[in-house]
């Protein structure tokens, strides 16, 4: 990975109220020439991942890592935060990513997630990751192999020009 491929690198405070400023910064930082849909989508992806990190992450490390970069024809956003290895929230995140990836299409995953929300109004969490896959058009993966840390990667094709994706 060339350093020049990194579009944005931030250590983000665990501050709920600061998420929108980062969402807007990510959208602005998407490569020059990217279409508006890609910018909006990556901003949303950053916001949903940061929300999860703020809500479910641990206080150490104090800050959340966020990296936006180009990788060949794709654009990739990685959010990394501290996590308790035995946390049920970590298990839920890993399960949710696997659940999403098991569907034949992002739309099927999203509709199934909305059906769950409809059927169980009190159920917690879970729609953000599915939104990233469906609305954000991203493939999502999750790495919890380093003790005390979890990173979530969302990647999509970089669409350039003014047309819809």
């Amino acid at each position: 990975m060339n350093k020049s491929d990194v579009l944005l690198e931030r250590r983000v405070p665990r501050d709920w109220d600061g998420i929108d400023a980062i969402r807007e910064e990510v959208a602005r930082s998407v490569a020059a020439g990217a279409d508006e849909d890609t910018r909006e989508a990556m901003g949303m992806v950053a916001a949903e991942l940061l929300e999860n990190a703020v809500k479910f992450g641990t206080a150490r490390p104090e800050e959340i890592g966020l990296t936006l970069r180009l990788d060949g024809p794709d654009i990739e956003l990685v959010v990394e935060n501290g996590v308790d290895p035995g946390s049920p929230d970590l298990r839920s995140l890993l399960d949710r990513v696997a659940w999403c990836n098991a569907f034949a299409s992002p739309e099927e995953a999203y509709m199934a997630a909305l059906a769950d929300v409809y059927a169980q109004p009190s159920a917690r969490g879970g729609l953000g990751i599915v939104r990233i896959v469906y609305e954000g058009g991203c493939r999502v993966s999750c790495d919890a192999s380093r003790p005390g840390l979890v990173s979530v990667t969302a990647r999509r094709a970089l669409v350039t020009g003014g047309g819809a994706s």
Partner: protein
Amino acid sequence: MKLDLREIQRGSARIVVGAQGGRTVEISGILREHDEGLWLKMLVTDIHAAAVERRLEEVTVDLRGLTYCNATAWKCFVQWLRLLREDAAARYGLRVISNPDQRWQLVGMAALRAFGADRLVIDHRRPDVPRRPR
């Protein structure tokens, strides 16, 4: 019969219940909910109850000024549709006015249709541009 006029400011989100003659809920700004959107759920439940009690035929939700909504807040709209369809006393339909320039609204609305069935109408309309005085 109409909804009582009230205005709620929550962070950078602004909600006006009973706008535009009393049957519209205008939501603008950024809706970023924590904790499963408890206050928003309560607001939706209140609006639903008022619409049922006052035998409204339609409630309009105008989202054209809403620039961003997180997944937690979005769940509240799904749950509104559940309230609407499962409450035998509810006679009203929901008309959502979305902004076609906000892609997330277009994509999200398309999925919502499946849950609203014939009780949900979605209009895509750009925000009104104030007329320049002559």
